[in-house]
């Protein structure tokens, strides 16, 4: 940044309350660039108590408030205004998040905004890529993964426009607490954690291979630091290879957290969860067929500051709206909660609009499936069919039995046709993923099987297309509209 211009830029602060850490950045801000004045992090591990009990303990609450008060003083020292505070997975999940937010407001004067997983992914993307986007020859296809304590956000982008994103409820603190609690973790714990990750990530649908993946978050940055210290990596190198991570894994599974902390200058709480972080990153690299990743120290906080400069006061609304757009290209998972229902609303009445809403969502997909361009469309339509069936099952007692039977049969036929295609897609995806790990003399058998399954998949696609062409959408909608007779919705009598 030009120094004169830099001095005239506004100073802002952004704090994020994550599952592992509370992190602050104070910076002079412009829409495309940041001059960072302060960057501090404290490991509070709120997620630990949320994983154990479902709520934020008083001890964690007090620790968080102490850190926030200190950060507020720090931000004010620089004249930062506004001071943004966002919270992510641990606060999203805590059953007592409302009282926590109230206590923070009361004792610090700071308002915390709890953001959705998708908004989190978008903001992290802004933060992690703003430096790369200015580099000459920046890659057209890029991915960003934010590995937090309680969740992992993954975003892919083309020419810096987000094309796909997902939020996965697996983080380094969570994996540690769930699977790797011994110090150091036992061989059995390690094996089970690896098997869990392998299984889980095989099931995560990722559309395309990525040439570049930028990883952010405390665990990723601490692993880079560990590699610098332990294996004498060049100080300016910000890449980690598969080999680096295998070496980290060996080291972290052999030493206690206390030894790691002492030898490699890591905070003890971070040292405890580093192995979990290394395993998750390895699993994602393996799923994406990557041998190297880039580590970025920037993330959601920088994203918040950039979003504010770009969009003004309504930055969070704009980011949240763009993150929640029903764009088939952007959403990785079908989002539940499509229609708001009030707890006191009569059951039959809520059934009428929920069934219509689920049917509408289900019917968004046939055109995408018929294009046969994206295997994910089949998966998403199948998920929509399951949610529609779950809604039909819930409201069956209010429905006209004859119409119910007709609608249910149609939806089940769709689910069966989609299921046959999707299950074959999953087998093919798994086989392709395994193929690279097989010895050359073993690959011929896999290729034979892939060829047979592809033949079968083509048959299933034809059947699916035949079914979808005969699916009378208007008729289905009319049937669903008359599923719960007006009389039942009005007075409970059929």
């Amino acid at each position, binding site marked *: 940044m030009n120094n004169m211009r830099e001095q005239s830029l506004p100073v802002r602060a952004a704090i994020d309350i994550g599952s592992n850490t509370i992190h602050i950045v104070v910076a002079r801000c412009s829409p495309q660039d940041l001059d960072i004045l302060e960057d501090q992090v404290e490991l509070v591990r709120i997620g630990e108590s*949320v994983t154990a009990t*479902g709520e934020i303990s008083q001890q964690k609450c007090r620790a968080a408030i102490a850190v926030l008060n200190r950060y507020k003083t720090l931000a004010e020292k620089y004249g930062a205004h506004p001071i943004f505070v966002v919270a992510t997975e641990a606060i*999203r*999940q805590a*059953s007592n*998040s409302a009282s926590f937010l109230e206590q923070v407001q009361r004792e610090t004067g700071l308002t915390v905004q709890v953001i959705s997983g998708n908004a989190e992914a978008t903001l992290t993307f802004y933060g992690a890529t703003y430096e790369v986007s200015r580099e000459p020859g920046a890659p057209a296809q890029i991915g960003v993964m934010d590995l937090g304590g309680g969740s992992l956000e993954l975003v892919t982008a083309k020419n810096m426009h987000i094309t796909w994103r997902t939020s996965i*409820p697996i983080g380094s603190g969570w994996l540690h607490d769930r699977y790797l609690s011994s110090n150091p973790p036992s061989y059995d714990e390690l*094996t*089970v954690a690896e*098997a*869990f990750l*392998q*299984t*889980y990530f*095989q*099931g995560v649908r990722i559309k395309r291979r990525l040439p570049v993946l930028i990883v952010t978050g405390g665990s990723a940055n601490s692993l880079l630091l560990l590699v610098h210290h332990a294996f004498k990596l060049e100080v300016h190198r910000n890449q980690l290879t598969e080999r680096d991570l295998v070496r980290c894994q060996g080291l972290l599974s052999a030493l206690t957290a206390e030894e790691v902390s002492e030898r490699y200058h890591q905070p003890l709480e971070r040292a405890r969860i580093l192995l979990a972080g290394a395993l998750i990153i390895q699993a994602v690299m393996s799923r994406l067929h990557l041998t190297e990743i880039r580590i970025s120290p920037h993330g959601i906080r920088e994203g918040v500051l950039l979003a504010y400069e770009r969009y003004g006061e309504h930055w969070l609304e704009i980011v949240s709206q763009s993150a929640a757009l029903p764009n088939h290209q952007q959403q990785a998972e079908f989002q*539940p*909660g499509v229609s*708001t*229902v*009030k*707890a*006191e*609303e*009569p*059951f*039959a009445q*809520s059934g009428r609009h*929920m069934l219509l809403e*689920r049917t509408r969502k289900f019917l968004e997909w046939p055109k995408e499936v018929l294009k046969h361009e994206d295997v994910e469309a089949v998966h998403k339509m199948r998920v929509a069919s*399951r*949610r529609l*069936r*779950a*809604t039909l*099952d*819930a409201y*069956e*007692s*209010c429905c006209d039995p004859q119409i119910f039977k007709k609608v249910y049969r149609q939806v089940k036929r769709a689910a069966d046709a989609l299921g046959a295609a999707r*299950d*074959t897609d999953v*087998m093919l995806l*798994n086989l392709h993923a*395994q193929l690279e790990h*097989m010895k050359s*003399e*073993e690959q*011929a*058998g*896999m*290729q*034979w*099987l892939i*060829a*047979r399954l592809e033949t*079968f998949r083509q*048959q299933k696609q034809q059947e699916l297309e035949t079914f979808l062409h005969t699916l009378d959408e208007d008729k289905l909608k009319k049937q669903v509209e008359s599923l719960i007779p007006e009389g039942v919705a009005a*007075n*409970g009598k059929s």
Partner: protein
Amino acid sequence: MAKAKPITGLDPQAPTGKNARLIAKERLEEIYTWDRYVDHPYHIQELHNLRIAAKRLRYTLEVFEDVLPEACKPIIKELEQIQEELGALHDSDVMIALLRLCLGSQDSAIHPEQLQSDGETQPKKGKSLVSPELVAVLLEPTVAPSAGERYGLEQYLQMQEQLREKQYTTFRQHWYSLQARDFRREILDILDA
């Protein structure tokens, strides 16, 4: 697994929140009709049914998320994880059955239908792990695997069997960790809150 059991005794005029709790409790009980099979790694169909039951409870909690307590969200995550674990196990079972089918049919007198289960439990009629249409494609005589291809299939079968062991261990360990904290009671308490 058959269609979900219809829920009886729901008052169409009752608040949605009240009925949503009744439905969720019924779906919870469905899960626990299958839990005795958790220690039986090769009761493939029953473990699959447990997965479907978990999925039904998860979808019920999601469909009614607006009217159920916030505390249901971590429960949804647990159910999603169980579903993922059992789903991966089922995928492996299908792949193992399929590989045994490809390998067994070429060098033994065993009828292909006998290869469609793991050998310890026979799938019920109409519940074959591998659909008859897929069997026909795999056993197409003109494209039978060569000796080299069979070797690769055998290696993959071994890998898949090892993976299944791990997947089962992962699921069982998770299941028991949930039982240790009395998951069923936990859900009932949330729904009764």
